[in-house]
């Protein structure tokens, strides 16, 4: 047996012994996701047990080095773990922007001190991070952002406003783009890290068409951000005024995350489930579902290929933009079809039978997929420019 086959066998056995049956059911909504953080609460014992077991084995971030809280798995081992988890439908033990976004940025740009502190906190689910990027006047044109940090020697004083900050009201810390040089558009932004509990930070949830509030407005009113949190642990990532490099790198990871490239529910085929729920399908709807399933299953293969190539540096650096475009457009289509198959029952907004209007609220939520993290139109611009090398793009 090769090492990888042995690893697969061990993994299968370990999952069988450690993943509680309740954690092998599909994630229905936010309540089934554990985000960690100072104020986190577990929805049930199974969620707690699964998280703690994985945390202790480094499986919240299996491919991060052990000294930063991971399990130090190779890309091939990481893929096997994902495959085996997906085989039994195991939920992710911990979800967080720290894992998906800040982590990769710190692994790439961070100092040793930052990695030791922040990555371990993320891996252990102790600190929940949010991302401060968009501003009211800076959406697709993100680099025009105005939130300003005034240099006060050993710290900055930050004033301004962010918007669409996911879960800012529940986050402990923020990684935030702050302008530190007003004369220099691209090389005048610093990627700062600070505590949301600090003086002058306030948040206000934004109610969306889904009736839910996953996003906030975030206000900074004379917020003091230290330049250092101790030895070898600066309060910013990369260099001062070079935060745009970090931001761009991280946007790749954000787009990868939103794309659903990792598989799971976001890309699965749905036709069979729709038929179980609806009974007979109208022939034309059945045909649409079949066309969707072709695209969804093909996209799942694309996700696998993309992640495999990413791990070994074979992926085009702009490929996350393509993945985000294709994945989010697919997810919107998926929910349109689920609404169609669901009929009038799917319209119910508050009923217990629909879990408080999940079909319609989730459908509406997906409309943000092709806006957040860069709109589909911006993705197509980036593909045109960086992959197809079209003129003037």
């Amino acid at each position: 047996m090769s090492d990888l086959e042995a690893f697969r066998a061990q993994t299968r056995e370990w999952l069988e012994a450690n993943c509680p049956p309740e954690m092998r059911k599909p994630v229905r909504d936010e309540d089934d996701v554990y985000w960690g953080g100072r104020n986190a609460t577990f929805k049930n014992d199974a969620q707690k047990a699964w998280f703690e077991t994985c945390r202790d084995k480094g499986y919240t971030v299996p491919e991060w080095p052990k000294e930063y809280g991971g399990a130090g798995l190779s890309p091939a081992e990481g893929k096997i773990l994902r495959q085996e988890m997906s085989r039994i439908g195991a939920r992710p033990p911990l979800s967080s922007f720290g894992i998906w976004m800040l982590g990769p940025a710190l692994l790439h740009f961070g100092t040793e001190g930052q990695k030791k502190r922040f990555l371990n906190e993320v891996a252990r689910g102790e600190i929940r991070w949010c991302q401060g990027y968009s501003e009211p006047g800076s959406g697709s044109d993100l680099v025009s952002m105005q939130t300003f940090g005034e240099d006060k020697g050993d710290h900055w004083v930050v004033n301004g406003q962010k918007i669409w900050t996911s879960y800012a009201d529940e986050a402990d810390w923020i990684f935030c783009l702050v302008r530190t040089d007003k004369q220099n558009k691209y090389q005048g932004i610093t990627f700062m890290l600070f505590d949301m509990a600090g003086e002058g930070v306030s948040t206000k949830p934004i109610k969306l068409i889904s009736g839910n509030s996953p996003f906030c407005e975030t206000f900074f009113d004379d917020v003091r951000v230290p330049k250092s949190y101790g030895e070898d642990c600066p309060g910013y990532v990369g260099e001062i005024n070079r935060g745009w490099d970090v931001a761009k790198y991280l946007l790749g990871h954000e787009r990868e995350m939103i794309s659903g490239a990792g598989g799971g529910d976001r890309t699965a085929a749905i036709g069979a489930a729709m038929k179980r729920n609806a009974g007979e399908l109208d022939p034309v709807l059945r045909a649409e579902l079949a066309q969707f399933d072709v695209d969804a299953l093909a996209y799942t293969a694309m996700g696998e290929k993309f992640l495999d190539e990413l791990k070994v540096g074979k992926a085009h650096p702009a490929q996350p933009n393509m993945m985000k475009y294709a994945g989010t457009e697919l997810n919107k289509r998926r929910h349109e079809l689920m609404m169609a198959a669901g009929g009038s029952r799917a319209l119910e907004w508050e009923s217990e039978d629909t879990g408080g209007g999940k079909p319609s609220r989730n459908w509406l939520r997906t409309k943000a997929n092709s806006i957040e993290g860069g709109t589909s139109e911006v993705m197509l611009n980036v593909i045109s420019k960086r992959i197809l090398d079209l003129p003037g793009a």
Partner: protein
Amino acid sequence: MPLYYDDDQTMLAETAQAFMAEEGAIAKQLRHWRDRDCKDGFGHALWKQFAEMGFTGMLVGEDDGGLGMGHVEAGIVLENIGRNLTPSPFLASSVLAVTALKHGSDDLRGRWLPGLIEGESIYTVAIDEGAKHRPDTIKTKAEKSGNGFKLTGQKDFVLHGASSDMMVVAARTSGSDDDADGITLFAVPKDAANMSHDAVRLVDSSMATHTKFDGVELDGDAVIGEVDGGREVLNAMLMAGRVGAAAEGVGVASGAMDMTVEYLKQRKQFGKLIGEFQALQHRAAHLYSEVEIARAVTIKAAQLLDGGSEKADLMASVAKAKVAKAAGLAVKEGVQMHGGIGMTDEYDIGLYMKRDRALQEFLGDQYYHAGRVAEMSGY
């Protein structure tokens, strides 16, 4: 197994790409033979070169004198065939017929494989009956006759049937038209009596036949695999052929797309390169995304097929359907974005559109395969 080419496959891809771009180029093969009204629809000299490159017998086992490669490798060759619109009997002979022959006796393999590997012989398969691909229904009959069989019926869309030294024919030896069981595959030699071909040129300049069997006498040793047990072999052939056709389609799609993107960078209107217009940029970027996805699922299907996975059949249909969508988009956008010259015979983009049309139809179009995905998924 990671979903990208390993080192050997990357090397093969480089070799196949260089070879096909040079020897299989549109001017040298497709146009050359088309403009001479070639009755084969392809060049025999190129087929010999395929043999020298090791392509003809790449799927044949090493014990039988082949290279023992898999469908990922065959897909690499096919993608480059598609990209250059290279006319050749590769898909029918080296993928479909070889897949059938692998299930044949030592005698059958010994009789047919060496000629193929040498590039001396070409084979094809006769599956369809009627204008649409409906392999679940087989009416062509093979009745017991002495020590052998007597074949009666008609097959359609037989690729280069009139030029083939042997064709693998799926016929019914028992049961009724729609039964899964009762199918037998036969290796029917070119010189069989009472077989006639109505050869037709197709839209892409390739040749196909309506082939009639009017009491064709076959020896018992023409049977590939088991009598009445041919469905399994037929399914294996169909899977291999569909994945192969998908790979060729990926080549057609990327060839058409690359040509079109290049054109956007050269053609000027309103004092600008037309590639500067966002309306065209977004369509080109969307096309890129579709073609990338089609390529990914095709490699995935080939890997599953090579690994003997039970998911291979489903993913072969997903790949065939997805490639049809992506390649269809590539050629339609290609002609539209080329504008007037895209409609001319002189320009190659229209040749991509024609090849795509024929390839879409071969072994089931996107509607057939999307329907199959639904059925296999349980709805």
